[in-house]
């Protein structure tokens, strides 16, 4: 194995790999946050919305969870960019180039949103009903209740599921290699292809992904500890 290939400056490909890792992380963070926003909306809709909203959300979560991420990513990537351009056209604006990053974040966010909807719905249902009723009895508006009571109270129940989703998000970014977005996996393949040192580069990329997972695990452990403070410790 030739480790000088992994050097950071141009004859080595290390810098390129790290840049790929950076865009992977950008995608993961962006997609995860968008997914959380969709998830909060979706969970509230599923729990408190009218019958039509509920059924539509059910269709959304079922579809996303039944169709492979790869297929969804392709569909949403093309459909999403197409839709935006058609909208621009309708508004009489010139069509614009959508950056791969924005499209990627949108795609990962929509996929993650379905899963976080389910995680958050379960977590909200685990809150004792009395706490929410108490908030209502104090005259809090639904939004205030959400911010002050529901979201903080559901956190300890949601953290395990949400941390799982974060790990899935970091790994799902690799799928965007298939639509040609240069994140870590695609960059690795290009580096490997042009130097013919396949093993070196794929193992290096694997180590990078693994490092992300392991660091995330440490941080998740700390968050979990903080979210569970004041709760009865499990036997």
């Amino acid at each position, binding site marked *: 194995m030739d480790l000088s290939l992994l050097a950071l400056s141009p004859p080595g490909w290390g810098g390129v790999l790290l840049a790929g890792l950076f865009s992977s992380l950008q995608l993961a963070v962006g997609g995860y946050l968008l997914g959380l926003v969709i998830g909060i909306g979706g969970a509230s809709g599923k729990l408190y919305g009218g019958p039509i909203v509920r059924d539509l959300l059910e269709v959304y979560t079922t579809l996303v969870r039944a169709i492979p991420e790869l297929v969804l990513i392709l569909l949403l990537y093309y*459909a999403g960019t197409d839709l935006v351009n058609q909208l621009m056209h309708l508004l009489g604006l010139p069509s614009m180039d959508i950056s791969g990053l924005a499209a990627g974040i949108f795609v990962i966010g929509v996929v993650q949103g379905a899963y976080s909807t389910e995680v958050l719905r379960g977590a909200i249902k685990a809150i004792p009903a009395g706490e929410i009723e108490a908030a209502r009895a104090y005259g809090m508006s639904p939004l205030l209740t959400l911010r002050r009571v529901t979201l903080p109270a559901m956190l300890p129940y949601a953290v395990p599921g949400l941390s799982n989703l974060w790990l899935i998000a970091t790994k799902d970014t690799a799928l965007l290699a298939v639509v040609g977005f240069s994140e870590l996996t695609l960059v690795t393949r290009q580096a490997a292809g042009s130097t013919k040192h396949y093993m070196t580069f794929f193992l290096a990329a694997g180590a990078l992904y693994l490092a992300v997972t392991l660091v995330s695990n440490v941080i998740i452990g700390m968050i979990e500890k903080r979210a569970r403070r004041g709760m009865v410790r499990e036997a």
Partner: protein
Amino acid sequence: MIKDEATILPAYKPPKARSLLEPHRLFLMAVFAGIFACAVIYMRWDWLPKYQDRLIAGIWQTLVLLFTTAFFGFLLAVPLGLAQVTGPRPLKWLANGFCTIIRGTPLLLQLWLLYYGLGSLFAQFPEIRQSFMWPYLRQAWPYGFTALMLSFAAYEGEVMRGAFAGVPRGELEAARAFGMGRFTMFRRIWLPRAIQRSLPTLNGETVLQLKSTPLVATITVVDTYAVISKVRQDTFLTYEPLLLLALIYLILTGILVAGFRFLENRIPSRGA
């Protein structure tokens, strides 16, 4: 006070089973049927008959990959789970490390590592090139199969670890009290009980595995996804083939879920 509250609270009523025929659902179904009809009428589907046979072969390939990798992956998951629960320390570390590494890296990367990495490595050794295995090792599917199997084994191995650890101690002690040897106890009590406990998660894992199978198309295995990609290249259509692909996977997932539910209902269990 508490007693009063108990009398005031109404008795728990299970939520009404909602029927498919409620008015808003009929309306939604009509809307979706309308969208579906528009898709059928206004989009281009004339390529369908030409690719029909290849599509069916592709679906068959997907299903074969799914079931063989799930089966062999499960066989590998049992020792992985067992090693993590009772194995000697080095074995425990090994099994744990394997699960962490596979679960911590994207499947696509593992797939490419095996196909491009190992593939190019194998080609360097004349011993391997001349062995009887070479005709197989030159194809793509052994790498796809291995990657999918290892991934299933790692995820399910984690589940089996929980399942082995969760078998009540009393049952194992009872087995020992009956004078069973370690192996008999494992074969008769521990393994069957652990598998029974892991069955509900097997459903979800298999659906996840189905959703991972299209990745093998990136290393030139001709599965459903690869056939659809070919259609897209030939016809320059963007949406129609992809929508059909989504529909195919939707149906496959539905069948899988229904099948597992049927099986689960046939396995006797006492609640938890």
